[in-house]
């Protein structure tokens, strides 16, 4: 009845549209089974992670990871390390493509704390010293060629390398270094630097008596000071630019191996190699392209198709276990998975300044009642149950000891009974409490609600609008119980234990105090012999286990770095802020 021609025309348009659109979508190569180029030739140089393999949560004697004693870190570098022309072992050329999940909030390394800032701008700046990016157990010169420490350990004198220039041609002087260190340790009014409360707490002041000498004065002897200086975050920014502009939030100008040539917020950041970098023969790479890919599935797809060769640290690399296994199957040898610690743990904070939480039996009962392995399973991420120190650092007690402690062990029956008994002793009955939490770490809060209900804590969860709000609640120190995570820039005992458990620690939100812990921490912070320091740290950990403090560790987070085996010269270090400068990295093809 109706006109057939019109109908045929409509069908043709629709059919044509459906057929043509994928064609204008671009060249498709329907050969998913094409074998990757034979990897045997390049296998010899394939990177191996130097960290111990991922520890299991069932610490039988066979499964425990050996805890290596930290090697003696030299206070002054050997002469061989002062000339920076390393032997060329890599191939020149190629652009490394990397995926990141969020934009950096701004470009100023002194003021930021997000990993997206450090991943990008570590390439463009240098620090005074750096970690050995292969073994991560010694501090090597960077802008400082050599240094001396005064007898009392309070004054460090650094001798800076000559001939280093900023991108605008002006020379780097010790004055720049002093300005940067002072800016980070004691920021001017209106600015706030996370370095002041963390890696540079011990610094009183930095001075530059002449253009090639930097003198840093400390408040107290600090065994961790040099390592803190080696953190990726401590970089030298140009004084003349800082004085002119106030901050470097929108400008990048450094001495590093790469320079940022252009960027589009939300899309990509492009870095090109510097031809006159002060380490001759470096960097190997022609450039680095960082793409902002917010969706996790898209990042995995980009890795799979080879469009990106690695993802940035932190949330960009968080991959569901199923996705990781699938990726391993699809990419086979072309994928390297390096497990590393993040110096980060999730905690339950119990505020001893408020009644009734000042009763230590409550914190002890909570620690006993928490089923840590169930929380890890709920989170869907990798985690290790351990004590009060990051188990992937050399400073922690062995897992065979910590994973079998009451509260931390797998069998909860005896622990639960003991927890109930302790709570009954307090005669407080059922306690109603509101627990603020952030959606990023909701698994701990949700699990704690049901697990702690068994010992008489009636928890109401209060979701905070942003993770930063939980930090604010903790900082105000008026809370009852909070579940949150804490991460540190280095794996040093001063950082992980000191900031949380010393009476004046910047992250001691719960008001915990123990005379013995204070005494031991005071001893370890000035002990320069690594073996002795480890012994003291073990004592601290055992003491903490004994008193069961109000800052209760739930589990230690383990991250996986996924990257293509084409990337050579790269060894994934512990934590997120060590050794991410790519001057020694090269591409196999």
């Amino acid at each position, binding site marked *: 009845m*109706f*006109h057939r021609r*019109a*109908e045929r025309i*409509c*069908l043709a348009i*629709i059919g044509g*549209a459906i057929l043509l*659109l994928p064609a*204008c*979508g*671009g060249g*498709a*190569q*329907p*050969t*998913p089974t094409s074998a990757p180029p034979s990897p045997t030739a390049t296998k010899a140089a394939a990177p191996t992670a130097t960290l111990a393999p991922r520890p299991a949560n069932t610490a039988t004697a066979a499964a425990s990871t050996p805890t290596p004693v930290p090697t003696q870190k030299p206070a002054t570098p050997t002469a061989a390390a002062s000339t920076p022309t390393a032997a060329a072992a890599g191939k020149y050329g190629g652009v490394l493509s990397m995926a990141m999940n969020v934009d950096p*909030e*701004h470009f100023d390394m002194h003021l930021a*704390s997000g*990993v997206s800032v450090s991943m990008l701008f570590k390439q463009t700046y240098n620090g005074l010293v750096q970690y050995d990016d292969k073994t991560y157990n010694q501090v090597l010169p960077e802008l400082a060629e050599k240094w001396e420490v005064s007898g009392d350990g309070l004054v460090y004198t650094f001798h800076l390398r000559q001939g280093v220039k900023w991108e605008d041609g002006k020379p780097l002087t010790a004055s720049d270094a002093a300005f940067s260190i002072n800016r980070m340790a004691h920021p001017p009014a*209106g600015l*706030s630097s*996370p370095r002041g*409360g963390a890696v540079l707490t011990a610094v009183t002041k930095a001075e530059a008596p002449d253009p090639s000498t930097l003198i840093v004065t400390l408040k107290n002897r600090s065994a961790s000071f040099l390592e803190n200086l080696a953190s990726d975050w401590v970089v030298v920014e140009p004084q003349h630019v800082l004085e002119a502009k106030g*901050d470097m*939030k*929108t400008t990048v100008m450094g001495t590093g191996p790469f320079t940022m040539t252009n960027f*589009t*917020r*939300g*899309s*990509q950041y492009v870095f090109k190699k510097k031809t006159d970098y002060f380490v001759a023969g470096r960097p190997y790479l022609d450039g680095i*392209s960082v*793409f902002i*890919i917010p*969706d996790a*599935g*898209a990042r995995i*797809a*980009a890795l*799979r*198709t080879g*469009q*990106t060769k690695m993802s940035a640290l932190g949330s960009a690399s968080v991959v569901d276990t199923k996705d990781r296994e699938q990726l391993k199957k*699809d990419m086979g040898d072309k994928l390297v998975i390096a497990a590393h610690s993040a110096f980060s743990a999730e905690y339950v904070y119990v505020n001893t300044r408020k009644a009734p939480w000042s009763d230590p039996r409550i914190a002890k009962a909570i620690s006993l009642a928490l089923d840590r392995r169930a929380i890890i399973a709920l989170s869907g991420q990798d985690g290790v149950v351990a004590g009060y120190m990051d188990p992937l650092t050399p400073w922690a007690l062995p897992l065979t000891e910590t994973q079998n402690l009451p509260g931390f062990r797998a069998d909860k029956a005896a622990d639960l009974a003991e927890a109930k008994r302790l709570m009954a002793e307090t005669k407080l009955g059922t306690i109603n409490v509101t627990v603020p939490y*952030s959606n*990023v770490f909701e698994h701990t809060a949700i699990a704690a609600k049901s697990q702690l209900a068994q010992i008489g804590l009636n928890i109401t969860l209060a979701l905070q*609008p*942003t*993770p*930063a*709000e939980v*930090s*604010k609640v903790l*900082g105000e120190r008026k809370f009852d119980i909070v579940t949150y*995570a*804490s*991460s540190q820039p280095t794996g040093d005992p001063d950082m992980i234990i000191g900031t949380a458990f010393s009476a004046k620690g910047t*992250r001691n939100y719960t008001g915990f105090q123990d005379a013995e812990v204070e005494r031991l921490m005071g001893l370890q912070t000035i002990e320069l012999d690594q073996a002795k320091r480890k012994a003291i740290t073990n004592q601290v950990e055992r003491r903490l286990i004994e008193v069961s403090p109000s800052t209760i560790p739930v589990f230690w987070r383990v991250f996986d770095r996924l990257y293509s085996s084409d990337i050579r010269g790269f060894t994934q270090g512990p934590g997120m802020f060590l050794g991410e400068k790519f001057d020694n990295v090269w591409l196999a093809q």
Partner: protein
Amino acid sequence: MRTYIARRILLFVPVLIGISMLIFIFMRVVPGDVAVTILAGPDGGGTIDPVKLEQLREKLGLRDPLVVQYGRWVWDLVRLQPGNSLVSGAPVMGEIRLRLPVTLELAILSMIISLSIAVPLGILMAMRQDTPVDYIARMLSIGGLAMPTFWSASLMILFLSLWFNWLPPLGYHSFFSSPIANLKQMIWPALSLGYLMAAVVSRMIRTSLLEVFRQDYVRTATAKGLSHRLVVTRHALKNALIPVVTVLGVQIAALASGSVIMESIFSLPGLGRSLVTAIQYRDYPMVQTLVVVFAFFVVISNLVVDVAYAWFDPRVHYK
């Protein structure tokens, strides 16, 4: 007609003022503090010193009375210099200039795709009512309505990478600098969004065409001996499209929310994504300005829709 359009354009001003006040109040009422987010960092890992917090608030002008802050922002907006982002320090106008073309292009491409699918499909469904063709087409359109866009977009990426070992090029290419690369990136999100919109519009066309076919004047036209093609195109279609134009107007507003999801999944630096990030940070100047920009486009497109009525339906007279 001209007076009508002029009056509508004048009405923009109170509408935008109302929206600006609403979003300003809303952002101040919502819990969450931009100073806290700036100090603690996006992952919330930093420690917050109450003294520094107050200093930062002072510096950002957050301690001034609300009326002063609002007035300052509106005055800046009128001069087209809505200040800097509180978080990155970069000017908001620069962000908008960079991101607006991306979102606009996505919206235009989605509309083109959706109309080119929906119009023929809708006409087909109406002309072949209750035949297998109609049922299949209706199933396709219900599928489009039922599938969430984030799901179909993620599936698209998964299948592209798994089956074809191919992904759209990373790093946004603008249409004017490299059109092929740009289309390769934009076609997929536009397809997702376009399919959803086509589902709605095609059903609308079908329903309203069927209604028009039942009208007397169509019967007269057929009885006159006009070919069916002429009956549909000259008489029925124009009248059937009136309700469709209404739906399209509403869809344009929905494009804004759809673009957020598409921009996140396909890594496009568009306005939708920067709005979401700004909201997470509570970056007040950014959020407020972007909302006003979105509102402006919605208001303009509604004006275009209203004017289009007059073209489609001569009975409509604006005074």
